[in-house]
C-alpha cells in the first residue's frame, strides 16, 4: 500500500473541508455536546454542524457562559468540555472561562474562528490576536494556518487537554482554512512530538512515603482536586487508604467529594474558611500527606507559619507544583490513582502498621477541637440565616441525585462548609480564579450531561447577575436548573472584609437596585420563588425541587451575616476567629496587602 512519510497508509485518509474535519474530529474524540455561539469567522463550521445529528450544540447567550457551561460539563463527567466560538469578541469573551479552567485544571477544548490567513495582522473586522491573548491562560494553543495540519492539531488538542494535569486548550482556525480541503487523519495515528506527561510514580518515593506514614504520631491527609481529576478510581483508593490507616482527612475546596463527608475520619474543609479541627490538625500534624493539592494561599494562610513541625509528602501530577510554595520532604510526581494504588499495595504487602497509641491520642486532640463546633451560628426565628438556608437545602435534597454548583463569595464558602458531599464530581465551583458568574452557566453544563439529576446553583445575588443571561439557554434546552440565591443585597464577602479590615466603610458593596428575581425568572420563561421567613423556607424549597423548569429562588437572608470560622489575612492556622469572637480581629499591615 502506498504510504506517506509518516507511515500512514494513504488509503486511510479521507479528503474533506477544514470545517468538516472539525466535526469529524469531535465525533472521533467521542464528543456528544458542545457549547457555543456562532459568528462570521466560524460560519463554515456551523454549516457543517447544521445537519449533524451526532453532536448536540448548546447555544449559550454569551461566550463566557459557554466556557463555564463546558467547565461544569467537564467537571461533572470527567470528559473534556468543548466550546465553539467566533473570532475577535467571541474569543476575548472566553478568556475568563479559559483562565478559570487553567487555575482549576479543567479539560476544555475551545475552538475559535479567526479571520482568513491573508487578513491576519491587518486589523480586519473581528480580528484579535487570539493566540497571543490566550497564551497565558491555556495549557497550550495553536493557530492552524494549513488545512493539512488541522486534523492532527485537533487530536493533539484533546490529548493535551485531558492528560497529565488537565487544562484548557485553544485551536484557532482561520476562515479560509475551514473552507479548504485536505486529508483527515484519525486520533489513533497522532502522537505528539514532545508532550509526555509522567504518570507512573517512583516506587522509592512511595516506600519513603509509607515509611513516614507508619511512623507518624499525628498524621493528616490533605486532599485536593487532583483526586477528582484522576477519576473515580482515585476516590475509591483514597477511601481504602484511609480505611487501612485510620488517619484523619481534610480537603481543599476543589477536592470536596473525593472523601465522604459522612465518614468519621472527615474533618471538613481546610483553609481560610475551613473548620477549626481541620486547620488545627494542619498546623499541629507531624506527617502531612498532600494528595493532588497545591498548597494554595487560601489553604496555607501565612506561609512561614504553615504546619511548622510536619514532614510533608506531596503527590501531584504536575512537577512544577513540587516545592513551589512549601518545601516538601517526599515528592511523588504521578497520577493520583496510580500512586494511591502503589501506596496501598506497599502498605499491605509490607504489613505496615500505624502507631495505634499515638493515633488514639491524636484523635482525642482532634475531638477536643471538634468540640468547638466551629460551623455553629446563631439562628433566628424571624430572619433566614444563610447558614440555615444551606442546611435546609442540604437536608431536603439529601439522598437525591444532586449536583451543586456555586458562584463566588460567602454563599460559596457556606456551601463548601455545610453541604456534605459523598461522591466525587458532584461539586462544581470556581476555586483558583474565584469567578463570580461561574455557577449558573456551570449548572447548564451539568444539567446537559445529567438530564435527570437535580442540579442546584447555590448563588449570591451579585454573582448570579454576571451571567444571568444563561437562564435563557436553560429555558431553550429544558434544563430544570435551580438557582438558589442567598440574597443579602451585598457583595457579602467584600462587605465582610470591609467590616473586618476597612473600618466598616462599605465602599460600593451594596446593590441599591436589584431585579425582582421572581419576575425575572418568569420573564425568561422559568419559575420564580421567594422565601423571606424561616418558617416558609422548607415548603418553598420542596416546591422548587418539584418544578420541572429553570428556577430562580430568591432566598432573602440576613444581610449582615459574616462567614466564619475565618483565618484572617496574614495569620496562621491556629489563629482562627470563630463566630462568637470579637469581630475586630487585628490584622497587620502586611496582612492587609493579601487578597
Amino acid at each position: 500500500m502506498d504510504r506517506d512519510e509518516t507511515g500512514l497508509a494513504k488509503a486511510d485518509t479521507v479528503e474533506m473541508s477544514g470545517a468538516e474535519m472539525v466535526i469529524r474530529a469531535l465525533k472521533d474524540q467521542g464528543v456528544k455536546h458542545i457549547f457555543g455561539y456562532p459568528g462570521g469567522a466560524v460560519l463554515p463550521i456551523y454549516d457543517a454542524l447544521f445537519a449533524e445529528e451526532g453532536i448536540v450544540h448548546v447555544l449559550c447567550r454569551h461566550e463566557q457562559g459557554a466556557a463555564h457551561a463546558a467547565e461544569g460539563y467537564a467537571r461533572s463527567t470527567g470528559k473534556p468540555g468543548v466550546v465553539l466560538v467566533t473570532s475577535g469578541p467571541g474569543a476575548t469573551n472566553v478568556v475568563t472561562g479559559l483562565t478559570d479552567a487553567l487555575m482549576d485544571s479543567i479539560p476544555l477544548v475551545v475552538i475559535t474562528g479567526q479571520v482568513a490567513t491573508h487578513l491576519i495582522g491587518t486589523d480586519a473586522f473581528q480580528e484579535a490576536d487570539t493566540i497571543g491573548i490566550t497564551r497565558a491562560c491555556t495549557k497550550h494553543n495553536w493557530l492552524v494556518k494549513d488545512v493539512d495540519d488541522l486534523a492532527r492539531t485537533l487530536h493533539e488538542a484533546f490529548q493535551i487537554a485531558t492528560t497529565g494535569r488537565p487544562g484548557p486548550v485553544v485551536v484557532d482556525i482561520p476562515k479560509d482554512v475551514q473552507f479548504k480541503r485536505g486529508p483527515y487523519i484519525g486520533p489513533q495515528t497522532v502522537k505528539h512530538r514532545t508532550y509526555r506527561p509522567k504518570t507512573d510514580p517512583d516506587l522509592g518515593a512511595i516506600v519513603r512515603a509509607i515509611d513516614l506514614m507508619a511512623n507518624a504520631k499525628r498524621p493528616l491527609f490533605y486532599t485536593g482536586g487532583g483526586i477528582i481529576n484522576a477519576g473515580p478510581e482515585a476516590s475509591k483508593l483514597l477511601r481504602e487508604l484511609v480505611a487501612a490507616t485510620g488517619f484523619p482527612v481534610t480537603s481543599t475546596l476543589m477536592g470536596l467529594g473525593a472523601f465522604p463527608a459522612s465518614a468519621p475520619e472527615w474533618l471538613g474543609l481546610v483553609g481560610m474558611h475551613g473548620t477549626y479541627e481541620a486547620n488545627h490538625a494542619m498546623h499541629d500534624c507531624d506527617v502531612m500527606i498532600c494528595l493532588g493539592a497545591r498548597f494554595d494561599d487560601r489553604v496555607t494562610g501565612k506561609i512561614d507559619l504553615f504546619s511548622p513541625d510536619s514532614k510533608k509528602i506531596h503527590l501531584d501530577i504536575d512537577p512544577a507544583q513540587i516545592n513551589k510554595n512549601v518545601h516538601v520532604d517526599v515528592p511523588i510526581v504521578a497520577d493520583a490513582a496510580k500512586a494511591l494504588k502503589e501506596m496501598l499495595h506497599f502498605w499491605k504487602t509490607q504489613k505496615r502498621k500505624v502507631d495505634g497509641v499515638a493515633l488514639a491520642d491524636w484523635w482525642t486532640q482532634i475531638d477536643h477541637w471538634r468540640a468547638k463546633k466551629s460551623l455553629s451560628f446563631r439562628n433566628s426565628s424571624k430572619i433566614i440565616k444563610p447558614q440555615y438556608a444551606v442546611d435546609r437545602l442540604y437536608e431536603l435534597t439529601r439522598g437525591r441525585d444532586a449536583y451543586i454548583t456555586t458562584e463566588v463569595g460567602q454563599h460559596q464558602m457556606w456551601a463548601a462548609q455545610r453541604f456534605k458531599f459523598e461522591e466525587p464530581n458532584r461539586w462544581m465551583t470556581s476555586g483558583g480564579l474565584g469567578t463570580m458568574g461561574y455557577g449558573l452557566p456551570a449548572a447548564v453544563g451539568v444539567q446537559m450531561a445529567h438530564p435527570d439529576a437535580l442540579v442546584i446553583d447555590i448563588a449570591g445575588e451579585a454573582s448570579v447577575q454576571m451571567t444571568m443571561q444563561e437562564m435563557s439557554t436553560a429555558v431553550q434546552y429544558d434544563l430544570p436548573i435551580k438557582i438558589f440565591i442567598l440574597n443579602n443585597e451585598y457583595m457579602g464577602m467584600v462587605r465582610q472584609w470591609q467590616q473586618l479590615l476597612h473600618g466598616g466603610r462599605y465602599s460600593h458593596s451594596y446593590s441599591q437596585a436589584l431585579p425582582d428575581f421572581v419576575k425575572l425568572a418568569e420573564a425568561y420563561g422559568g419559575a420564580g420563588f421567594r422565601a423571606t421567613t424561616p418558617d416558609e423556607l422548607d415548603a418553598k424549597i420542596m416546591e422548587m425541587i418539584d418544578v420541572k423548569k429553570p428556577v430562580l429562588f430568591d432566598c432573602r437572608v440576613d444581610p449582615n451575616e459574616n462567614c466564619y470560622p475565618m483565618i484572617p489575612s496574614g495569620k496562621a492556622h491556629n489563629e482562627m476567629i470563630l463566630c462568637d469572637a470579637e469581630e475586630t480581629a487585628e490584622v497587620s499591615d502586611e496582612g492587609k496587602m493579601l487578597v
Partner: protein
Amino acid sequence: MSAAHKTPNIERHTIAVLVDNEAGVLARIIGLFSGRGYNIESLTVAEVDHAAHTSRVTVVTSGTPDVIEQIEAQLRRLVPVHGVTNWTTAAPGIEREMALVKVAGTGDKRAEAMRISEIFRAHIVDTTHTSFVFEITGAPDKIDNFVDLMRPLGLVDVSRTGVAAISRGPEAM
C-alpha cells in the same frame, strides 16, 4: 536592577531550553518569565537542527535557588519543550558571548583602544579615521571588562548577543 539583587542568596544561572521550532514558542518562554515575575538577564535563540525542526534558547536568569527550581519546572511544563538543562548546577558548561563594540576618537585614545583590543584578542571589523568597531568573543565577564575599559576611550555603541552555552565532554544536553 531589582531589589531582589540585594538579597544574599540570589544566584545567576544559565539555562538551555531545547524546543520545537514552532510559531510563538519564544513568546511562550518570554511570557512565562514576565508572567511569573522571573528575571531575564540575557536570552539567545536560534534554530540548531533544521531537519529535526528544533531551536535552542539560552537564558541567563537570576533568583533564589527555589525560584531557579521553579523556573526549570515551569519551562519543562511548556508543551513544545524537549528538554531543559541548567549549566550552572547540572553540568559543567562553557559560556560564550559575542559583542560588537564601537569606539570613536583620535590620537592617544584611539591608539590606546587599539592596544587594549589586542590584549583582549578582539578583531577590528570596521574602521574609519575616527572610529573602530571591535568584535570580541568570550565569557560575559570578559566582555564586561572590555566595555568598561573602552568607556573612557570613546565608547559610543555596544551590541551583545547574549550567552550561548554548551557542556564540556562528549555528551549532548
